[in-house]
């Protein structure tokens, strides 16, 4: 593991749920220190890719490496490097904000003598100090997302992975989350891998993006490069790039009843 290794390298990653191919043999490199956006509509295969990278799913075909560690063989070591925020709002409502973050400090073996200070630091960094000792069931959706960022950051990971971090949030909360992500990268140099289907957000926040559609990566580059590749007067957007590379509309693909249930549950928890 050297500093020159890419943060993530997927080679021929393929994953199928029964007969449904979710990820169809992708090659992907996330460079160390960049904010990388994995973009695509619901059902494009983004979350399955993320779940393979985070060791949540096995890697039946292909190779996935995180800082040159094979995720299929070095699961615990890989998890040590990762801070993960899942798509669903996942803070424990029965605990306070501080307890939620302290839980992850303990699970990542943050030394006892540093624990309280580190928990306080990340809570402060996410602007939650005043609410830290309230149960998180009283938090707004935006506050829960910031708390989850604090949970993911408390172990000072090398790679921060965020799965649809702004889904279901109002525009102000969405902006707040992106500002925090940018600030974390600026202050720590951490690599950030983020999935989203909000093209305009990715355009402003990501150094590079990959457009994913029906389990395949159709284009990779900086938002500017991809927009320039269309030619024209520069008024194009990433939406236009997506249409040009896939020949398809930006529509959601069916993900099944469970996904719909989860999305509704998230919306319900957000209020």
């Amino acid at each position, binding site marked *: 593991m050297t500093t020159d290794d890419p943060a993530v390298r997927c080679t021929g990653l393929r994953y199928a749920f029964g007969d449904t191919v979710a990820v169809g043999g992708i090659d992907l490199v996330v460079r160390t220190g960049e904010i990388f956006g994995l973009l695509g509509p619901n059902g494009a295969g983004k979350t399955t890719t993320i779940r393979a990278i985070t060791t949540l799913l096995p890697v039946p075909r292909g190779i996935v490496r995180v800082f040159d560690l094979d995720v299929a063989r070095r699961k615990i070591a890989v998890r040590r490097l990762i801070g993960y925020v899942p798509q669903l709002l996942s803070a424990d409502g029965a605990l306070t904000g501080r307890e939620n973050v302290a839980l992850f400090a303990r*699970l990542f073996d943050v030394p006892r003598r*540093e624990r309280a200070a*580190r928990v306080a630091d990340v809570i402060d960094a996410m602007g939650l100090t005043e609410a830290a000792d309230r149960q998180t069931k009283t938090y707004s959706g935006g506050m829960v997302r910031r708390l989850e960022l604090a949970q993911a950051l408390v172990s*000072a990971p090398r790679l921060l992975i965020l799965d649809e971090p702004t889904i279901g949030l109002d525009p102000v909360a969405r902006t707040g989350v992106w500002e925090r992500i940018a600030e974390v990268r600026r202050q*720590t140099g951490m690599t950030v891998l983020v999935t989203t289907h909000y093209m305009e957000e990715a355009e402003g926040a990501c150094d590079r993006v990959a457009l994913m559609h029906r389990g395949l990566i159709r284009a990779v580059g900086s938002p500017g490069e991809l927009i320039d590749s269309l030619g024209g007067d520069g008024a194009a957007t990433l939406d236009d790039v997506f249409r040009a590379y896939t020949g398809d509309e930006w529509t959601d693909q069916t993900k099944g009843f469970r996904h719909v249930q989860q999305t509704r549950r998230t919306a319900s*928890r957000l209020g």
Partner: protein
Amino acid sequence: MSSRLAALRPGWADPLLATPRLVLSRVSTMCLVELQKIRRDRTELFTRAVQPSLWLVVFGTTFTKLQTIPTGDVPYLDFLAPGVIAQSSLMISIFYGIQIIWDRDAGILAKLMVTPTPRAALVTGKAFAAGIRALVQALVVIVLALLLGVAVTGNPLRLLGVAVVVVLGAAFFCCLSIVIAGLVLSRDRMMGIGQAIMMPLFFASNALYPVALMPGWLQAINHVNPLSYQVEALRGLLIGTPARLGLDFAVLVGSAAVSVAVAASLLGRIAK
């Protein structure tokens, strides 16, 4: 935003704990979280105390007067109290599978599984957390039993043994519940199955009546029912009836270990 964020020492440089320390660390973390939740939800302690109280106060005192269940020199209420402790710990832990499914649906399980925690350590942590909750419940039942005049031992070593037995039993039933959750994968089905197996486990044990009174087929089930070994150990430790404590502890430790291993192997299926 605090500039202190930049000064965070990289967590990935922290040494990875050796496996036994890691398991101990995860178990203590999960138990601490459970205690934090119990502290804030005292209502649940009272609501959960209703059913064991009814068993002791209504069923226990009535059948003590009727003297229809032969329990030798031991009053029926004394005989029943350890069974009620075991039953209340069973009731608490058998629904942990639902909590795991809820954690999955809320994204909490995925997040826990991306921490540097082996799945067996995660399951062991949950199992002991169930044990902590069962222990609090057992305390309530013991206090109630004392108020009703049950001759509960005051020997601290025996009481420590009671605590260990309660935790081991709860750990086994919690893991059994996670195993069922891993097979059925839905909260509704889990709720139905939990209800369906709880009473048969209870009635096919020595919690309510001596084994000698059971028909042969029920005695056979009783012999493979870990709840019976838990009740026997609790009864022996708490009120001093004859018990095969070595066998009881061996069965409880063995069944807890096997169920942790099976539940851990199914955790990935639940999280998928």
